[in-house]
């Protein structure tokens, strides 16, 4: 028997339990990716069926099919089968919430108008039942003219019936007659416009004339929408004129078009629900009312919110320490293993410093990403995320952002990588880009070692303000504030320049609270970690290898390897060992200075001199491109202490204090230390963040812009700090 593949597309309003259903139908066999050229995620799963394989595509939740952005247009393209590389769906499954049926049928009316093979799934039937709301699905199916199945995805009720119904719909292939919920005059004028477009321009939007007509109808309904833009892009000014004339005709005949559309669809929805909803039942959910009276309370609400944020921040910061230490020790164990097998040489250095170091540099982020997404998924599935946005929206709107930007920014204080990934909850693309752009300004945990090393080495341990606060603590706080104070005007400027546009409204549905579904949460965490490791990780890994090579080549490493072999075989307390170790450190420092990286450091020395830096700090800044904390190991190598130093290393602090310019004056003083810290507070020295930005925005434009902008700011910020600092 020939295996044929069928395509089923899942659509529905947000908060209809669509992702729970997607999980229930497809299990974990999910592929995620992006649609060509846009930021929206494409999720494809497989549905087990005896006769053929079924590909299940999950579209992002939407209230309507009128596309206002390229992202929303993708949903229409996938549904109509005109998207590049996408097949026409064999069946569309629309998920509706049993407790908000009237509003959910708005989307159903648009799908019925399209005339695609359709199956309506009434989800959350258990929630409706618990409130004595009865839904007569047989009557609804008769009214709608398509099959209707009642399920409860979270309780796994009715899933088997749904599978059968999908199978039946795919095998029977009955055609669905499109409905016409809008006034007849609309369809007459649309048909005329369609004929004009066909005869006067070369426009073909889709192979099927039904789909073609539908897209033209959408273009007429949504002035300046994405469908109209696509038509104009393909067929030029002539098409624009025809559409505008058609729209003027419609307005003369019918009045305000959008008003007519929405009124007609809601009237249709009321008609469809005749005899479907039983009498009685409570409209409002008591538990939700009660929880909302606490969680969105004027005082308690804010306290609970602050407490939750603190918990999340603290856990990303503290709880991830154990798995991160485990990854580090596994990395150390593996390196040791390789070192005991391979003789010192380029291959060993490549495997240990390049490959194992690179893989470790990717995996080290996984605990933080996993933890953040665990919290996000729990709060989201419980229904709290929308409330959090509701609580802080006013504050964020001052920056031109919305309440939804708060959590991604907050989590960026731990690490910008999960922070950037968390911006997926922001639907408005401009808000999302602005949030992604300012997220790296939040001082992440990788900057902390740099701050600690320099503060401990150069800031005196004096206390200020009557002995309550130490000067060191104040400097540390100042470093965290530098990022925030730069982020505020940056967001403000972005929203007024490159990301300018109609200010995004906050029209946010606050769903009913429910127990989180562990399967949905598990899947979210798994997907987030997998996406990071596979798609950003490979590039981070590649960048680590490049920096390794630049620091290793082209020097002659034979003496270094010889020394490494000698040290390994030497007795642990011999005097010769100390001599060899000292020589090895000197040799490693010399090799780094002569490497491509060291040469580059010398080349850029004139450029970093106004910042108070010598070539060594320059090398540290370049080598720390993969990750900021690398500067400490690099400084350790340049100061011939070996790369295995950390921020509490006394030797490194002494070496920094003793370091001099060729004329004998010390390189480091407080202004230089501050200048380095300001540089690291503002720079984009984190290849992981840049590559996650690339992944999330689906273009190189944003990471490049971010890198140039942040590096420029960091450079001039550091210069300003040094120059002002030297006047005191």
């Amino acid at each position, binding site marked *: 028997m020939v295996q044929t593949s069928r395509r089923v597309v899942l659509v529905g309003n947000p908060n209809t339990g669509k992702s729970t259903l997607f999980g229930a139908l497809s299990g974990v066999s999910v592929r995620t990716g992006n649609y060509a050229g846009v930021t929206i995620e494409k999720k494809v799963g497989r549905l087990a069926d005896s006769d053929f394989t079924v590909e299940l595509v999950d579209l992002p939740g939407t209230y309507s099919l009128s596309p206002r952005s390229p992202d929303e247009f993708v949903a229409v393209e996938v549904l109509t089968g005109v998207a590049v590389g996408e097949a026409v769906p064999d069946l569309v499954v629309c998920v509706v919430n049993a407790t908000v049926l009237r*509003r959910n049928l708005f989307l159903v009316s648009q799908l019925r108008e399209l005339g695609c093979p359709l199956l309506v799934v009434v989800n959350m039937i258990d929630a409706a039942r618990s409130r004595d709301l009865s839904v007569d699905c047989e009557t609804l199916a008769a009214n709608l003219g398509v099959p209707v199945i009642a399920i409860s995805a979270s309780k796994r009720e009715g899933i088997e019936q749904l599978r059968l119904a999908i199978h039946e719909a795919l095998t029977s292939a009955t055609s669905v007659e499109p409905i016409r919920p809008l006034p007849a005059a609309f369809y007459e004028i649309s048909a005329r416009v369609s004929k004009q477009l066909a005869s006067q321009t070369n426009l073909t939007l889709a192979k099927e004339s039904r789909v073609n007509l539908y897209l033209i109808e959408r273009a007429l309904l949504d002035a300046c929408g994405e469908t109209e833009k696509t038509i104009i892009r393909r067929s030029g000014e002539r098409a624009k004129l025809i559409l505008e004339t058609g729209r003027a005709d419609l307005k003369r005949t019918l009045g305000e078009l959008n008003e007519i559309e*929405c009124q007609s669809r*809601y009237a249709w929805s009321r008609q469809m629900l005749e005899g479907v909803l039983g009498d009685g039942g409570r*409209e409002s959910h008591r538990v939700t009312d009660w929880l*909302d009276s606490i969680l969105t309370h004027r005082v308690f609400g804010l306290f609970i919110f602050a407490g939750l944020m603190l918990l999340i921040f603290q856990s990303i910061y503290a709880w991830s320490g154990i798995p991160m230490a485990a990854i580090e020790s596994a990395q150390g164990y593996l390196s040791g293993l390789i070192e005991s097998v391979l003789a010192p040489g380029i291959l060993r250095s490549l495997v240990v410093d390049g490959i194992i170091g690179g893989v470790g540099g990717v995996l080290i982020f996984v605990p933080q990403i996993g933890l953040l997404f665990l919290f996000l998924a729990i709060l989201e599935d419980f229904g709290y995320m929308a409330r959090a946005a509701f609580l802080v929206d006013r504050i964020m*709107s001052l920056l031109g952002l919305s309440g939804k930007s708060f959590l991604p920014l907050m989590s960026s204080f731990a690490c910008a990588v999960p922070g950037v990934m968390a911006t997926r909850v922001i639907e408005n693309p401009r808000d999302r880009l602005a949030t992604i752009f300012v997220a790296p300004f939040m001082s992440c945990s990788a900057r902390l070692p740099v701050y600690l090393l320099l503060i401990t080495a150069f800031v005196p341990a004096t206390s200020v303000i009557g002995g309550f606060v130490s000067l060191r603590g104040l400097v540390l706080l100042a470093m965290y504030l530098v990022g925030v104070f730069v982020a505020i005007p940056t967001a403000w400027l972005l929203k007024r320049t490159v990301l300018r546009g109609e200010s995004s409204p906050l*029209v946010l549905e606050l769903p009913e609270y429910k127990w989180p579904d562990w399967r949905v949460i598990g899947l979210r965490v798994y997907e987030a970690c997998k996406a990071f490791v596979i798609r950003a990780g490979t590039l981070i890994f590649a960048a680590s290898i490049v920096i390794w090579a630049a620091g290793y080549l082209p020097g002659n490493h034979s003496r270094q390897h010889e020394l490494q072999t000698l040290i390994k075989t030497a007795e642990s307390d011999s005097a010769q060992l100390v001599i060899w170790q000292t020589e090895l450190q000197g040799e490693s420092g010399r090799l780094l200075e002569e490497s491509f990286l060291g040469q580059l450091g010398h080349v850029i020395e004139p450029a970093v001199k106004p910042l108070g830096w010598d070539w060594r700090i320059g090398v540290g800044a370049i080598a720390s491109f993969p990750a900021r904390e690398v500067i400490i190991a690099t400084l350790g190598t340049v100061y011939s202490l070996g790369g295995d130093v950390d921020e509490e290393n006394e030797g490194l602090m002494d070496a920094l204090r003793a370091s001099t310019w060729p004329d004998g004056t010390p390189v480091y003083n407080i202004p230089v230390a501050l200048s380095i810290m300001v540089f690291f507070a503002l720079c984009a020295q984190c290849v992981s963040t840049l590559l996650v930005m690339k992944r999330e925005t689906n273009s190189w434009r944003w990471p490049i812009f971010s890198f140039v902008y942040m590096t420029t700011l960091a450079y001039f910020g550091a210069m300003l700090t040094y120059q002002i600092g030297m006047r005191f």
Partner: protein
Amino acid sequence: MFTLNMLAPGQSAEVVCVSGADSISSRLREMGFVPGEAVRLLRLAPLGDPLKCMIHGSRIALRNREAQRVVVSPQ
């Protein structure tokens, strides 16, 4: 003209229309703010904006700026 943001918390009203012809107004209409629909203001956020209302059995948060577009007649 009486608009949604002028309602007191707990007060119910009937939607008269949504003013404006841009995408924000379209979005509001799609979300169910159509003439004749019953709407109830539930509460305001701690800083007075946005507000939360109940329409079609679901809770919707709107900023004052958006709520000003929703003309209502209080009951």
